[in-house]
């Protein structure tokens, strides 16, 4: 383990340097996303105002606001570029340059991305959590921050990121077949976003659909951590969702390995 850290740490370092090169880009990106958040916020505010009821499908207005901003935070932090990075290297053939190094691709990509992520971590995390908690304080008049839920949320978030990363790497390997991932990546992001509960909470779905979606890996990406954060899950539900998250993580790591082994055998490097 220590050896792995030593070998792959420079990738994280390089990732930080890379992210620093494109920080302006990143800030615009985040600003765009935050605007989307506020659109969502006003939309739900209108729903609560017109309904007149205190709660909507078990969510109070405060819960909903927390859900919107924390799901945004979660999907930003658990976001993975894996499919794009892997797909692009396969498309232009530079994957060959990784194969001539005594390293594992998944780990090299992972550690590099972690480095690139540190920026979004520091830029988005503190202001958003502080903002949500302040809002809750002013809306309810009391301070309701739960340290336990927050720690559980962090664990769940890390699992969510790892699942998302390996899922995206698996997906990126489809470039071996499709050769170009531009279009399909876009479609994937939309579908995954919906299934992960980024658009509307999965609890709002019809019960049968909701049950299925809860079991699918996508719920583990955003919905599970957010529900833990806003305190909607009972301890039993939390335990179950951790088990599910670990299951999906192992599943995607194994799948990634299988696909990789199969692809390498029939690899044709594009160009030169």
């Amino acid at each position, binding site marked *: 383990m220590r050896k792995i850290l030593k070998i792959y740490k420079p990738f994280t370092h*390089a990732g930080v340097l890379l992210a620093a090169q494109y920080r302006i880009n990143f800030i615009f990106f985040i600003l765009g996303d935050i605007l989307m958040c506020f659109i969502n916020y006003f939309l739900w505010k209108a729903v609560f105002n017109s309904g007149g009821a205190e709660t909507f499908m078990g969510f109070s207005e405060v819960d909903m606001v927390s859900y919107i901003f924390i799901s945004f935070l979660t999907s930003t932090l658990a976001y993975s570029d894996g499919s794009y990075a892997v797909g692009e290297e396969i498309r232009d053939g530079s994957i060959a340059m990784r194969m*001539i190094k005594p*390293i594992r691709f998944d780990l090299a990509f992972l550690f590099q991305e972690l480095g690139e992520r540190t920026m979004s971590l520091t830029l988005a995390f503190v202001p958003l959590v502080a903002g949500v908690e302040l809002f809750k304080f002013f809306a309810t008049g009391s301070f309701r921050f739960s340290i336990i839920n927050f720690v559980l949320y962090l664990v769940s978030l890390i699992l969510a990121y790892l699942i998302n990363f390996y899922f995206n790497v698996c997906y990126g390997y489809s470039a071996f077949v499709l050769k170009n991932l531009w279009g399909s990546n876009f479609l994937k992001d939309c579908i995954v976003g919906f299934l992960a509960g980024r658009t509307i909470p999965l609890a709002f779905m019809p019960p049968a659909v909701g049950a299925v979606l809860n079991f699918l890996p996508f719920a583990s990406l955003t919905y599970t951590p957010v529900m833990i954060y806003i305190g909607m899950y009972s301890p039993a539900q939390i335990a179950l969702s951790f088990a599910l998250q670990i299951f999906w993580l192992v599943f995607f790591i194994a799948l990634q390995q299988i696909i990789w082994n199969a692809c390498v055998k029939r690899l044709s490097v594009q160009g030169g």
Partner: protein
Amino acid sequence: MIYVNNLKKEFKKTIKDPGLKGSVKSFFKPKTEIITAVDNISFHVPRGEILGFIGPNGAGKSTVIKMLTGILTPTSGSCEINGKIPYKNRKSYVKEIGVVFGQRTQLWWDLALRETYTVLKEIYEVDDAAYKKRMAFLNEVLELDEFITSPVRTLSLGQRMRADIAASLLHSPKVLFLDEPTIGLDVVVKDNIRKAVKAINENEQTTVILTTHDLQDVENLCDRIVMIDKGSKLFDGNISELKRRFGQSRELRFVPYDFAAVEALDYKTEFGLGEDDLELENDGHKVTVRFNSDTIPVENILNYTLSKTHVKDINVTDADIEEIIKGIYRSEVKLDA
């Protein structure tokens, strides 16, 4: 050191009819065709040798290199390097080799060059003392100092290639693969790179496999050449052997006082030659006769020419390696291998 046995690689290729209709058709019902990029190639390279791997574009050179470096898995046949099979024990195998693909880079595009070396140092587990010594040596042969702090994307092609070669040598590999290392470089940089490769080969007994289109590389560096075309091996031997075997063609050039008198020269009848054995070219400034010194001794052709014409100037030259290889690529030289 390096054993290659009946190595073969086939690719499946989708054939598409031209135009939009063709695209739509191939989307639903792709037609495929098997292409043999490398066909039963065998050779052996002893430790410390520099092997030149040459052939025209699309001959399969890069495919062979990719199989030897563990990137591609051969369809059939085998290769063994340092007692390892590249595509089977990839991770432990690549620790002992260095690879440079002239058309790609292993450097981190957006980072200062030095960062790439830091990452490589950890990947190959080079300790601090060895790293320092190594960098000093590479600096000396490749002169990296002037641009080591610049981002890689700002380097010129020549600097980038030097940096890439240094990156492939950081861990003192036993085998170095250079795929077109001098592509697109000016003569001075080419010369520097050749000197560096030579120095590393001599100092460390590094085995080098080099593909190139620049025959100066071959003449200056290689102990031996393997020539391939259309996936098959055409020639395997050293340069003097190549010259001896295919290099009997000579060129006689002379400037006569009277160009009309050249008409009277009839080499073919005089020496009883076939249509392809001799080539005569008269461009009004000089006369060039290409012939094979096996069929016509140089003395005879000179005597005959001088007896028929008065010349201002005359000389006979050896065909250079470039001419020979051009001949082989165009299949003008009959191969009796």
